[in-house]
């Protein structure tokens, strides 16, 4: 029973929009033939339910659009004063009202992609291990719950852990390889972020791998494929879109993460020279400076920073969607 439900879920993202429209029309057709059997009250309840769903569904769209509009409106002052220089300006000086977000943009992208890079092997390993090798039993269950627990730990705790444990380790590592031994910086933040985003790709990947129809796998085995070969040429191709969606989810989380990053990134507005340098991300600048932004241009510049982060997230998500589409059609 569970399998059939899951199979519905798995085909839904693959289905193109044409199918969605079709399913919308279907109940209409069905209802005209079966209406005689339904009471008036039932039909009414059905309609109310459907309308509620429509309204709530659209409300989220309106909400996101509203956030976007608010960000734009409140950024106007900053856009007028800083112009396009805001995007590639290298100085962030609230005292002189010079605002350039380039160092923070760089910091956000560097930490997020580095974290993703570090986390992918781990999340895929967990997904394959739990999805294919040991789907049942108490040890895999424990592992599964532990991985999911990673997502439930508040980010401030990761920050403290990073500051107390990870920073000294990174510092001694840095002094060994000859980098400036600070400990705080982009590399440390990426490590923390990598840990934090593992569960997203791992959980999604695991459920995708478990949904691979067993007849496909058995067919491969009967042809003499080894386990590795089955994973490589049956499971991974079959679950590609799901694994990719998990990565995008992880990336989204990494882009927006604020607290843990702020605590270990070093918070300087200077452009990072290497991945071991301290830096800053857009989210942490907003979190750090919003409370004491005491003049209108400064406040507006911080809101514009939020707008830039919003746009960057949307653009990356769109690119991701395109990539998923490309991967699935192949």
């Amino acid at each position, binding site marked *: 029973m569970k399998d059939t439900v899951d199979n519905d879920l798995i085909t839904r993202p693959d289905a193109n929009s044409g199918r969605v429209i079709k399913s919308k029309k279907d109940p209409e057709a069905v209802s005209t033939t079966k209406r005689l059997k339904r009471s008036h009250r039932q039909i009414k309840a059905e309609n109310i339910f459907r309308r509620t769903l429509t309204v709530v569904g659209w409300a989220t769209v*309106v909400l996101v659009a509203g956030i976007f509009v608010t960000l734009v409106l409140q950024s106007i002052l900053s856009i007028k004063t800083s112009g396009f220089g805001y995007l590639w300006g290298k100085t962030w000086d609230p005292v002189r009202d010079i605002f350039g977000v380039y160092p923070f943009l760089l910091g956000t992208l560097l930490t997020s992609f580095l974290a993703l890079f570090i986390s992918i092997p781990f999340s895929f390993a967990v997904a394959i291990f739990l999805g294919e090798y040991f789907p049942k039993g108490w040890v895999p269950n424990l592992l599964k719950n532990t991985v999911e627990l990673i997502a439930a730990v508040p980010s401030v705790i990761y920050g403290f852990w990073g500051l107390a444990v990870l920073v000294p380790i990174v*510092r001694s590592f840095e002094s060994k390889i000859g980098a400036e031994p600070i400990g705080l910086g982009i590399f440390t933040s990426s490590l923390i972020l990598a840990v934090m985003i593992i569960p997203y790709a791992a959980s999604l990947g695991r459920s995708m791998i478990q949904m691979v129809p067993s007849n496909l796998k058995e067919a491969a085995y009967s042809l003499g494929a080894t386990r590795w070969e089955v994973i490589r040429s049956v499971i991974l191709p079959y679950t590609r879109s799901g694994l990719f969606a998990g990565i995008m989810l992880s990336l989204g989380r990494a882009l927006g993460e604020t607290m843990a990053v702020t*605590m270990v990134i070093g918070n300087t507005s200077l452009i990072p020279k290497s991945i071991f340098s301290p830096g800053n991300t857009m989210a942490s600048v907003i979190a750090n400076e919003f409370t004491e932004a005491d003049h209108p241009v400064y406040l507006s510049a911080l809101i514009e920073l939020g707008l830039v982060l919003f746009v960057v997230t949307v653009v990356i998500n769109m690119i991701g969607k395109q990539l998923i589409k490309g991967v699935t059609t192949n």
Partner: protein
Amino acid sequence: MKTFKSLALASLAIVITGGMMMTSCGGSGTASKADSTAGKSGDDNTLLGAGATFPNPLYSKMFSEYDKANGQKVNYQSIGSGGGIQQLTSKTVDFGASDAPLNGKQDSALPAPAIHIPITAGAVVLSYNIPDMKDTLKLTPDVLAKIFLGEIKKWNDPKIMAVNKGVKLPATDILVAHRSDGSGTSNIFTTYLSKVSTDWESKVGKGSSVNWPVGLGGKGNEGVAGSIKQTPGAIGYVELAYAIQNNMAFAKIQNKAGNFITPSIASITAAANITIPGDAKVSLTNTDATDGYPISGLTWILVYKEQKYDNRTQDKAIKMLKMIQWMIHDGQQYCAPLNYAPLSANAVAIGDAQLKSVTYDGKPVLQ
């Protein structure tokens, strides 16, 4: 037909929700905040305040003691000085609190004139981590500014050695730690550096967030303290109360009179023992007092000079002013145990005069 109807319904709902959202964002927070807090400030028995985080532990203590003694509740939200000033400007709170006096721009943004009442004073201390150092580090304003500008890079720099004669300083790199979040602490510290160093003033300036030329940012006092404790060779600034509670080493700073002063409650109160102007807008940094610690600052409560605005009752104005009066008199006993410096006698006198100048409908509120 059905589809059309439900679509129409849905779009209607969108228009309504959208409209609601537009009005709430159009007011840029002011209107909506006023609406949401109107209920609270309408409640006659609770005074509403917002602002500085630095005096929050002291204010919490004072307000809870005041409630015990007089049955007057005060709801103080420590959202930061900037936020406090904004909320006062939009009249959503009874009083604001700030670590820095209002500047010209903020003053002109207010719909009506406001007065400053000093409540307590605090200090910013320079804490450091120099392994195997037994003596207390001494710093002159010039050396301090050069360290934070990144011009002095090593602890055994001749300029530091000249101030600390007979002290063995290591050849370690100096790591500067500063606050990453906007804060009154940073404001006091950068105001001080701007006063003592023209280089600092022209290159960096003063503010609750500045563009630091060197160093690492830590979130809050604990973030800076963490960097200092973990990194040999680090120096950073934290609040005095925080440094004392966490047994951190801090430096003696040379004041304007040329004396090296250890930060303490006594030396902060001494710093405030100067001529304070009638509007109480004075910075204690680089004080003229001979035994005063130079990196100190007052923190203020801000109220409107004319208390009759919106639907405010005279009763409420009286309650609030009495409460503030209590803070600068009886309330001062709670300062020292929490490592805040009590006000000097002349600061209290100025505060009293300021409170008496508050009017309701043109008539003084307190006799």
